[in-house]
């Protein structure tokens, strides 16, 4: 291993852990909030099971507004809210708040798109079999859309990594922040390059896992 990596080993490991925490929270938020929001976007849209203009428009606007912020501005804009939620606007925990918000909005859109690809006929068959809305969601929609949902989550996670790299502005740390502080600000270009390589490997691994799982699940 290059000397410089050995020299900063502790710090690099700590930064990777911080990135891991931020990614973990983002993924949790995407799945726990983004999946239902995306599902309701789909269900309440025109001609769908729970068609409802008001709910659809509210969710649609919310998702659009969050996604239209340049992420750096969203982080700053949310500082007062972050203080209320975690008690401080500085640190890794505080960094998780804006990440969780962009994460659910980002993934909700992917969810909506994946569900829209489920053939209408399958839903009709479900209705004709006496399925309830809950049955249709869990036993038909999610089953038919599952590879799209996985691929969407994979793409989202890669974006979350990118988002997490700027969390240094609120002292969130993470591997991206490490690269900026040491590599850029202290002119250790080789260190920055190593970090970039680590991140490329990370993204590759995530993408390969996501694509493989999605392909395995796709029987269409």
């Amino acid at each position: 291993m290059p000397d410089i990596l050995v020299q900063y080993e502790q710090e690099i490991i700590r930064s990777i852990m911080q990135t891991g925490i931020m990614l973990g929270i983002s993924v949790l938020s995407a799945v726990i909030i983004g999946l239902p929001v995306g599902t309701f976007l789909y269900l309440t849209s025109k001609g769908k099971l729970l068609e409802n203009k008001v709910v659809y428009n509210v969710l649609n606007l919310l998702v659009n507004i969050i996604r239209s912020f340049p992420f750096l501005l969203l982080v700053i804009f949310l500082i007062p809210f972050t203080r209320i939620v975690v008690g401080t606007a500085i640190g890794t925990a505080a960094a998780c708040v804006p990440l969780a918000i962009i994460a659910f909005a980002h993934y909700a859109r992917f969810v909506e798109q994946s569900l829209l690809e489920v053939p209408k006929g399958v839903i009709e068959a479900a209705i004709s079999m006496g399925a309830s809305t809950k049955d249709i969601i869990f036993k038909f929609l999610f089953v038919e859309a599952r590879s799209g949902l996985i691929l969407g989550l994979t793409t989202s996670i890669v974006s979350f990594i990118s988002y997490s790299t700027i969390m240094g502005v609120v002292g969130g740390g993470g591997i991206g922040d490490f690269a900026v502080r040491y590599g850029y600000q202290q002119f250790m270009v080789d260190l920055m390059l190593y970090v970039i390589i680590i991140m490329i490997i990370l993204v590759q691994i995530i993408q390969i896992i996501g694509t493989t799982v999605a392909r395995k699940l796709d029987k269409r």
Partner: protein
Amino acid sequence: MLELHNVTKRYEQQLVVNDVTLTIESGEIFGLIGQSGAGKSTILRMMNCLEKPTSGEVIVDGRNLASSTARELREARKSIGMIFQHFNLVANKTVYDNVELALVLAHYPKSKRKERVLECLRFVGLEEMHRKYPAQLSGGQKQRVAIARALVNEPKILLCDEPTSSLDPKTTAEILQVLQQINERLGVTIAIVSHEMDVIKRICHRVCVVSKGEIYKIVPIEPLGIASIEDHPQTFVDELLREGV
């Protein structure tokens, strides 16, 4: 068995089905035929309220589905089977799981599911295929799976929406044979929509000619059977259809 009383369907301003009244008798195969856009599919799809009638009554087993609550409607649908032109199977589930799903939705006892699923698959001749996915099957096989799925809860009536329209003539004959067996051996009443005269002539006991959203005529016919249709170049039904459309 199933009655439609003054059933009308409008989409915004367009009148698709106008004041249709008909009765399907228990045990018969009832055909609906007409040109595309005539409203025959809509009439069929109102029989289980997949399309909700704008007005009128849909009486199945003495209950008006058009005015039932969502819960009652879901219950009623479990005893009305339905198959479609494009089969509408769950592509990510195996043949077995597709059929079992209908049992799961009907809260069929878990311990008896396997036996029942395999029994239905045997009936349509696909028992060996139960581990395959729909994408690995031919069109005719997919429709057989759909039939097994529709039969698994022992429906009293089976609605067939253009069930053979995406199949070749040979496969069409095979599927019609299965439908006929369902009617004769299991005593299931069948309503079938098709734009193909052959299909209707072969298995139906009565045929309803639909034209411009209205019933032109309902007449009893003698089913010609599955065997080669070429021997019957001209029939009464052809004449009737020519009048109707």
